[in-house]
Structure formats: C-alpha cells, structure tokens
C-alpha cells in the first residue's frame, strides 16, 4: 500500500470589526447585556428589510486585496434556508454563487518550509445569534445576529495539522494588519471548520468529513491530528468511511458524528429579492486598495532597507502589528536610532510583554518615552545601567524619562575633573587590586571600575572611567 496522506480544506469565519451590523444600524459590541443591541431588522420582525453596510463590503474587499483575490465587481446576496432558533429569519443572508472575492493565495512557513494555500473565495454574510441553555429553558441572545461575517474558503491544499495551524496563524496576522477584524479568538471573532479526507498519495480523494466546533487554532490542530489518525486507520484497514459532519469535543479530545450526508440540509439557496446586486466600480476598489496598510512581508523588507536591521530582527519586529508600530514610534522618538530601538524593543520590551501578557498599547512606558531614553544614552546624558533602571521604573509607573533622571539625580557624570577625583581615591584605597593589575591580572580592572562607579553612585561615564583607570595604572 502506498503512503496515506490527508487532504484538508478550511472554511474560516471572520467577524468584521465594523461599528454597526451588516443590515441595520445596531452596534457591534462584545459583552453587552443580552438583546440590547437589537432592532426589528436584526430580530427578523415582520416587514423589516436589510440595507447593506458599505463598511462591511469595504473590509471584505480589502481582505481580498491583501490575499490577492480577484474582486467580484458584481456580487449578490442569497438566502440560505434552515431553521434554528438563533437565526432570526430562519434564513441566513449569504453569498452563494457570486461572492465579493474569488481566488487568492496565502503563503506561510512551517518549520522553515514555505507553503502556499490557494483560496477559493471570500464571501460576506451575517452572523447568527447565540443560544444558551438555562436551567430548564433555552435563551437566545440576538446581539451577535447581523454581525458582518466573512467566510474565507481555501482549496484543499493543506496536508497536515501543522500546515492548517500555520495557515490560520498567517491568516490572522494578515487580518490584523488589514485592521478588518479584532481577531479575538476567545470572543469568537475567528471560527474555523475543516474538511478532511485521507487517501493514498497520488490517488483519488478519500471520503471527507467536515469537523466543527473548534474554538481555537490549537483546537483545529488537535482535531485534525485526531481525525487524520482515525481516518488513516480506517483506510489502512479498508473500512468504509461515510461522508459526514463531525463535532470536535475539546475536553475529550475526540470527534463524533453529528449528521451524515443523508440528513444533510437542503439550504434552498435563492437570490435575496430584498437586496440589489452589489456593483463596485474599479475606482472604488482602487481607493480602498490605497487605504491598505503595509503587509508584514513588505514591512520587513522596508525595515531592512530603511533601518538597516538584520533580516531576523526585522522578521521578529513585524510579526506582530502592534510591536512593529511601537518599534517605528520608538525609532522616531530616538532621533532615528533604529539599531538602538530594535535592541530595546526586542530584548527589554518583548520581555515585559511576555511577562505581563500586555500588548504594546497597554504598556505604561510609551514609545515616545523609550525613544527619549535611548536618545539620552546616545547623548551620553545617561549611562547604560542607569538607563535600564529608568526603563524598569517607567514600565511600572510610566512618565517622562528626563523627569525621572532629573528627580533621581541619575544624570551621567562626564566631567573629567570629577571622574579624576573618583579614580584617584579608588587607587589610593585599593593598593592590593592595583598591584594585581600591574602584575598582569587584567581582571582587577573590573573590580576597580566597579569601585569608581559605586563612588559616583553609578552615574560616571563608564567609558571615561575605564580609559582614565588604564592611563593611571599604566
């Protein structure tokens, strides 16, 4: 028997971060009291009609542009019928055969290997409400109903759980860069269904299963690992698989059958007569393209060229949009010292971020403050060790570094006369180490330097101290 390989396609639902819902003026807002952001339209009251939110179209088109899709200049909306209490109209308005975006590509790396996944389409639809099971009753919150939702559908180009994970991570980064979604997985901003089948390499595709109910990318990864193993075993044992929808149980770590093809829904799609076709002009699309932010790859390239950063450093900095933005703000405030800014951001700042779980925008030390701190070191008004102390203080309390240095009296002592006095005193008080140094124990210099710094309360310019000490002990 030939090698068995999995074939995977992903359908990712992404909530857009528009201010209002897709068909009405109700706010899109997480965490509001149930059924407070609702109106006759998003509650499906008799006589209400949908009006398409232009911002949702724009964000979907921008996503398509970021992913290299062809933009459907003429798209339309269709009704997809099925009964469920969380769906106010018992049909979902979606796009069936004329979506806003067609095709597209997403490239990403997994363990140093480049992968490319082709996209089939991106269409724009409405989210549904949320059912909750209360004691002895069911409740539905329709606040979420009508949240604009993009469905991003891949071709079956993925062949492992790791690739699926890599695809989702890369997709999330692009969505963040595009500013089209808040990308908060805990709030369900991104939800993914997978289609997976296993078959002999090079042969016809196997019987696929659709897996639902994964809430995290890690869940997608685990569900795929489980399902690939299950199907591989079945195929290897020549057991028949049925086409079905399976539910992932994250606690148990297993998938189980929800429904088979026989009882699959007939969604009875037809064009929604309440909505005219969406006709976009090329100029409109170009206008939206011009508003797009720089993508990670382009930004990394610019960081190499503009700031002279090593490729690795640039890659680390652009991996997170906010970090990249913070870094650039630091560079600006540090009078263009990009190397200094990247050192500080990649070591100190990222350490604080990982320790506290904060995002750059939540940091108490602003990019401006860090920039002027770097400037002070560059201008020799503050030495390195003291700068670290100031940084630690600003991380805790925020504020202006110049103010802190002034208050603490930490300004670097560059005055030759003052340093001369400290050096003289240390030489006189430490005959032993002085002898050691003169007899060839170079390490003794470090000790003597430490004594001078101590005497200066850490404020002396370390380079000046070292040079003077060497001169006097020569």
């Amino acid at each position: 028997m030939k090698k068995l390989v999995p074939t995977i396609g992903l359908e990712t639902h992404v909530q857009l971060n528009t201010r209002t819902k897709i068909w009405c003026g109700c706010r899109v807002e997480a965490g509001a009291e149930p059924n407070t952001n609702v109106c006759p339209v998003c509650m499906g009251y008799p006589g209400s009609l949908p009006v398409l939110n232009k911002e949702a179209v724009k964000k979907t088109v921008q996503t398509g542009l970021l992913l290299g899709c062809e933009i459907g200049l003429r798209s339309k909306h269709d009704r997809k019928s099925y009964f469920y209490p969380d769906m106010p109209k018992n049909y979902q308005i979606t796009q069936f055969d004329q979506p806003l975006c067609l095709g597209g590509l997403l490239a990403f790396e997994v363990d140093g290997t480049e992968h490319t996944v082709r996209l089939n389409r991106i269409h724009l639809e409405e989210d549904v409400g949320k059912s909750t099971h209360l004691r002895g009753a069911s409740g539905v919150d329709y606040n979420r109903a009508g949240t604009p939702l993009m469905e991003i559908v891949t071709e079956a180009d993925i062949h492992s759980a790791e690739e699926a994970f890599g695809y989702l991570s890369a997709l999330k980064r692009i969505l963040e860069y595009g500013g089209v979604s808040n990308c908060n997985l805990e709030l369900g901003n991104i939800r993914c269904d997978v289609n997976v089948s296993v078959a002999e390499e090079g042969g016809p595709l196997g019987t696929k299963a659709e897996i639902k109910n994964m809430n995290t990318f890690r869940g997608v990864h685990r569900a795929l690992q489980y399902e690939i193993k299950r199907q591989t075993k079945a195929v290897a044992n020549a057991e028949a698989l049925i086409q079905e929808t399976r539910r992932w149980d994250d606690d148990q770590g297993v998938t189980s059958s929800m429904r088979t093809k026989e009882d699959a829904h007939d969604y009875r799609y037809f064009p929604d007569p309440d909505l005219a076709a969406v006709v976009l002009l090329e100029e409109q699309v170009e206008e939206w393209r011009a508003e797009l932010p720089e993508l990670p790859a382009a930004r990394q390239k610019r960081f190499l060229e503009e700031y002279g950063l090593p490729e690795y450093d640039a890659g680390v900095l652009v991996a997170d949009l906010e970090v990249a933005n913070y870094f650039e703000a630091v560079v600006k405030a540090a009078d263009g010292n990009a190397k200094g800014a990247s050192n500080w951001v990649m070591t100190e700042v990222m350490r604080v971020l990982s320790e506290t779980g904060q995002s750059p925008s939540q940091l108490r030390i602003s990019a401006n403050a860090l920039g002027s701190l770097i400037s002070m070191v560059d201008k020799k008004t503050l030495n390195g060790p003291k700068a670290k102390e100031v940084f630690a203080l600003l991380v805790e309390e925020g504020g202006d570094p110049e103010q802190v240095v002034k208050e603490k009296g930490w300004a670097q002592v560059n005055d030759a006369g003052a340093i001369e006095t400290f050096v003289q005193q240390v030489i006189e008080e430490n005959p032993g180490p002085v002898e050691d140094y003169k007899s060839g124990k170079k390490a003794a210099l470090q000790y003597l330097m430490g004594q001078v710094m101590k005497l200066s309360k850490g404020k002396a310019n370390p380079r000046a101290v070292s040079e003077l000490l060497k001169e006097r002990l020569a």
Partner: protein
Amino acid sequence: MSGLASKTMGELRDLLSTGACSSREIVQSVADRIRAVDQEVNAYLEVDEEAGLAAADEADRKRAAGESGALLGIPVAVKDLLNVEGQSCRCASKLLEGYISPYDATCVAHVKAAGGIPFGRVNMDEFAMGASTEHSAFGVTKNPWNRDHVSGGSSGGSAAAVAADEAIVSLGSDTGGSVRQPASFCGCVGLKPGYGRVSRYGLTAFASSLDQVGVLSKTVADAADTLQVISGHDPKDTTSDPSAVPDFSAALSTDLKGMKIGIAEEFFGSGVRADVASRVRAAIDACVNLGAEPVPVSFPHLDYAVSVYYILAPAEASANLSRFDGIRYGNRVEAEDPVSLMKQTRDAGFGDEVKRRILLGTYVLSSGYYDAYYVKALKARALIKQDFDAVFTKCDVLMSPVAPTPAYRIGQGQEDPMALYLGDILTIPANLSGGCGLSVPCGFSEDGLPVGLQILGPALAEEHILRAGFAFEQSSTWSSHKPEVKGM
C-alpha cells in the same frame, strides 16, 4: 354632521379646511358606521375607537393652531400586514396573535406625518395569500353588494370597508392583484403603484420582488392624493426607487387627448365572462370619446403569467414566512425542545392555503428542482416583462378587465384552487414586470355585482393611469353607486 363616513377624502378635506366638520366627527362617523354594519361585512379585525378619537382631537387641535397636512384628521384603514407602532399586526393569521408592532411601516409613518390617523386593522387573506379573503383566520369579509359573495383579496377588508362607507380610504398591498381585484369586486378604486414607488419597509413580506403597498379609495383623486403622501425613496428599502415623486393630482385631467390606449385581445380571452368584457369595452369606448386613441397591441406570453407567479411568489414566501416560528414574537405552542416548538407553532398557526404555498415554494427551491422550476420561471418572467415593455412602446396605458369574473360566491373556489389561481391572470403581469395598475368601477355584471376597468402602465407611470382613470370616472357615474348595507 351625519353621513361623514360616506364622503370622499377630497370632500372631507374641504369640510375640514372650512371648519364645517371636525376630525373627531369624521372618526366618530366612521366608528359608528363600523359598529352598525361590520357584523354583516366583517371588514375589520380590530378598531380602537378611543385611540382614534384621541388622535382626531389632536388633529383638530393642530388645525386650530394653524397646522396643515395632506391627510390632517383623516382616518385611514390599514391592512393587517402593515406595521403600525403599538398596534397588532396579525396578517390575519393565528400565528401572529399577540404580536404588537414595535415600529411604523414607512408608508404609515408618511401617513402620520401628513396628519392621517391609522384607524382600524382591516381583514385580508392570511399573509396576503388568496384572492377572496376567505383565507383569513378570522372569518371571510363579505361583499357589500351581495353578502353571499366574496369581497376579493387579499385586500378584501380594505375594499369592502371603503365600499361600505366603513372607511374613507385604506392602505392595502398588491402582490398579484390584491388591491385591484378586491377593488373591482367591491366597486371602489384600487391603485397598485409601480414597484419601488412606495417603500416596502414595514409591509410584512409575502413575495418581496412582487409586493407593493397600494391604496383603496372612493375616487381616483383620493387615490392620487394618498399615493402622493406615501411615495418616495426610503433608505430603509433598497428596492425603493430613488427618483423624484411627480405631482400626481396635477396629472389628473378630464380629457384624454393625445393618450394612446393599448388593447390586447389576450386580456379578453376565453376565461373572461361576456358581461365583464362588454362593460370593459364600453369603458374603453368612453375613453376614446374623451379623446384617447385606441391601439391594438399583443401580449403573447400572458398564458404563462399564472404559472410563473405561482412558482416565484411561493418560493419567496417560503423563505419570508420562515421567521414565524414562535421564538421571538407571536403565538407559540410550547414543546420539549426548540425544534418541536417551531414545528408545532407553525403547524397550529398557519392556515391551509399558507401551508400549501410554503410547501410549493419549498419544493421549487429544492435541490434537483431549482433549475426546472425556479430558474425557468425567472426566464419566463423576463419574457413577460419584455411583452409588458413592448406594449408600452406603442401606447401609454393598457386597458383590460381586472378579473375574468365578478365576485364569486363564498365557498365556490374552495374545491378547485387552480381555478382560483387562474382568476389572477390579468393582474399578475403588472407585478411580474414591476408596472403600475389601477382598478376603476365601470359598471355592473348581469348579476348586479361591480365590474372594474383595469388600467395598466409601465413602472412609475402612475401619472398616466391616474389621468386615464380620473377622466373615465368623471365621465361616468359608476363610482357614485353605493351598495345597500343597512346594518342594525
């Protein structure tokens, strides 16, 4: 002042403006008339007399304060599928019992803004599915001219109320003839504007691509004035037309010089009863005498209209009516789980005709049948629209009967729904093509029931059909005939 309910809206506006009567007297007169005769007619599902009188007092105060408005102080009967904030809106269905509208339909908001008083909810076929008002869950509305006969439908309550002087004017809706046919059956004026002229926001949808809010009134001028108030682009309805609304009453004139009247023999085919055809031909002759020029035209695809309509309308309806599930509003049959709750609610709440159409619509949209039925019907609809457009390159308006027969006996159509459906053949083309249509009384059948003249025009050409209807009405006396409903 007594007998105010029997006056036209135009007459009442004059009386109000000269101070000869008050809005309170008008509403009281209408309420008294309803109380006196509606047990016989059953046009109304609900009347809140107290609220109506309070609104009338408010209108009288406004008038005294110098305010004016096209409908200031005029009561308007509202078909039970239009949302009026704070009122029930049951669509004559048990399923929506208990539902109180949280908002005004745009046309209702326009009526209120013009000073009109939404007064009473009038009967209809459940969810506008039917042509006789026999399919109301709350009893049939009877024809004021002969209570053994139907009032037509689905806006039968609107037409009967206006004809029996239980209303001054009424808002209805027309999906396949639901304003024009009951107007014809009851002997009043029925106007179906072009698709997009009046916002559908707040009109409970039957078939969204065909539905249009319409007016039932005692005169063509009243219809024109009411249309003026409710027309216009609505940002809440993307299918509403953005173009400017013309001055409809300015288009009314008593001569028809220069107007070309199309006559398509297909509209006088074998199904049309001879007495109906002869009344309509006489009316066309009268229009020619007023200066119009008759032009023979053809409408080759008319025979497909009913089949197309009874595929597309139920298809759209099957989705539109999905929302009625007992979860968020209306009646509910409690059950163990949400799916059973929805099933049982719908089973108990919908009447047979509604169920029949939901089943039909579900079927034609099902995978495997979609292309054979739905897609094919869309193609045929395009052909009918072509016919419609071609006709109006040769003439300004098309004249025909509204329905092949006058109002039939209650119960007569129940055994054979297909025969009933065929009765819509002459009105459906206007809905399939988005055009406008008017029904104007043009005489009586051999059995003494009203016959209507249908005047059709292309989309948004209401000025033409109103002009023709007005001229004919002014030249004849048919509109002044009143049914005898004595009441108690």
